[in-house]
């Protein structure tokens, strides 16, 4: 089981409030991603749950048990760190076995569990090596192995993929998602990368300045952002935003439209613009269009588009896909 409840959790460092007071419910078996720009408090929130930081006030419970004042190890959680945090003087085997040794587990049981974890993570051939002799991806797998053997009620991941190159990040993302499906254990994953959040999460928690901006499924956040911050943060390329007369026409202070929801034409449309840069990704082309009276907008065009720099284009937003925001930045539904 791994149901985690935060109620009015607050964290201050001296005079600085990092988390002003958060309420959050994480269901058993859920893959929850905390996402937000750097300095938004997502890592602090994870460390509060882990017990590596003390809460200033509020309550954290795991499966209904209040763990607010408990030591990290007593909470039954396992954590994977950004820097892997492997023990450099121990072999891979001993790294994975360490939490079991600390728990005083029987040697035969330790051996079975370590070998099982190594098999799941394709580390069997590396058990005798030291962390220094492994690649980044392998090190990260050892860190995950060390977490798995404890059979924790929840896994906590603190930006685990940010030290890896782009290709490996993609592979590891998949591996972690598969692991979640295989184990069915609650996972809390912190990242600043919204692509990771979108592709892995059951539930995304968007944070800004220590506050929860919105909680929801990836598609929910993508299609119904609660405010301008979420609208701008989720989705790549970013949502196009327009204010002034262009927005008033649709009865809002600000309107937002995603690049794939703009109809592109060379003959007619609501907005007129000039193509600046065309980014060819193969399957799609993203056109950066300088729209009159609005500014820069990104439009998704087919991969084989003939449009080039300097061409005049006309854009029409799909009205059903238009996001409307009021003066304070909140979504108008």
């Amino acid at each position, binding site marked *: 089981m791994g149901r985690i409840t935060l109620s009015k959790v607050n964290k201050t460092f001296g005079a600085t409030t990092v988390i002003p007071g958060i309420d959050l419910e994480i269901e058993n078996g859920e893959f929850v991603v905390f996402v937000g720009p750097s300095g938004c408090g997502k890592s602090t929130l994870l460390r509060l749950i882990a017990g*590596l930081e003390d809460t200033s006030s509020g309550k954290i419970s795991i499966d209904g048990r209040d763990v607010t004042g408990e030591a*990290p*190890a007593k909470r039954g959680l396992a*954590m994977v760190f950004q820097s892997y*945090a492997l*023990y*450099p003087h121990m072999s891979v085997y001993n790294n994975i076995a*360490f939490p079991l040794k600390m*728990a005083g587990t029987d040697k035969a049981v330790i051996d079975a569990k370590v070998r099982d974890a190594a098999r799941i993570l394709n580390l069997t051939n590396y058990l005798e090596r030291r962390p220094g002799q492994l690649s980044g991806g392998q090190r990260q797998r050892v860190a995950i192995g060390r977490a798995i053997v404890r059979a924790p009620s929840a896994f906590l991941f603190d930006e685990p993929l940010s030290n890896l190159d782009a290709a490996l990040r993609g592979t590891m993302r998949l591996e972690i998602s598969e692991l979640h499906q295989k184990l069915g254990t609650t996972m809390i994953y912190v990242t600043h990368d919204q692509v990771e959040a979108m592709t892995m999460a059951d539930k995304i928690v968007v944070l800004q300045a220590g506050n929860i901006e919105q909680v929801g499924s990836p598609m929910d956040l993508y299609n119904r952002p609660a405010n301008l911050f979420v609208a701008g943060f989720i989705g790549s390329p970013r949502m196009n935003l327009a204010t002034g007369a262009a927005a008033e026409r649709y009865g809002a202070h600000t309107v937002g439209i995603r690049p794939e929801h703009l109809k592109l034409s060379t003959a007619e449309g609501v907005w007129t613009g000039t193509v600046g840069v065309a980014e060819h990704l193969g399957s799609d082309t993203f056109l950066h269009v300088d729209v009159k009276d609005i500014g820069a907008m990104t439009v998704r065009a087919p991969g084989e588009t003939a449009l080039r720099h300097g061409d005049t284009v006309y854009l029409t937003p799909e009205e059903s896909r238009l996001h409307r925001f009021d003066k304070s930045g909140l979504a108008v539904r």
Partner: protein
Amino acid sequence: MARAVSTRRKVVFTILAWSVALLLFFPILYTVITSVKTEGEAISGFSLIPSFTFENYVEVQTQRDYWRPFTNSVVLSLLSTFVALVIAVPAAWAMAFSPTPRTKDILMWMLSTKMMPAVAVLVPIYLLFRDWGLLDTRTGLTFMLTMINLPIVVWMLYTYFREIPGEILEAARMDGATLWGEIAYVLTPMAIPGIASTMLLNIILAWNESFWTIRLTTTNSAPLTAFIASFSSPQGLFWAKLSAASTLAIAPILIMGWFSQKQLVRGLTFGAVK
């Protein structure tokens, strides 16, 4: 790309490096040379060619007991190093891993005690030692050597511990390690190279300390530094014998330094390179 270094530059630098090394080593070399000269040769001006007599060594050992100060030097330097490490490891630990806003001040204050001339506190310390019955005792001198080297030991260990990433300790905490488990299984094994080089340096410092060892001892607990000093009196100066005594006093530490130079260099430069 590696920078290309011309052969001529290499030769010049090699000669320069050897010259500096020789210059630094020369006093020790000259002491060793003088120790195998006769007293007559020793006072008759600069000469690098001795007559290779070992008389001085024989005489030094028959005139005075060498082994008692030698044993004292070994006991004092090892014991004071051990006590200093027992105090400094937890202290440096606490300062490196759970610093308070005052940690830097405490570190600077500790270092500032090394800036004070020792002679400034000679009288009060001498009087305290006299009143407490610590004069010419190994206990008193161990205490003194521990105290004067403690700031350096704490600083060295602090610098070393700071290089250990905090996340590893947090990982150990998450893995269920108690404070002692963390220290025994994770921190100490990772810190062993640092602790070893600190230990070596402290042994050398304690072995070579001469201000307090000469002033607070007479015979019973006098180490080799006092042994050397005893040859500068009372019959006048006998350069060759003094050099033989000096050579005997520095030989053990020189040999130890030679075999542990790798650890020592690492100890003296850690923190400088990642």
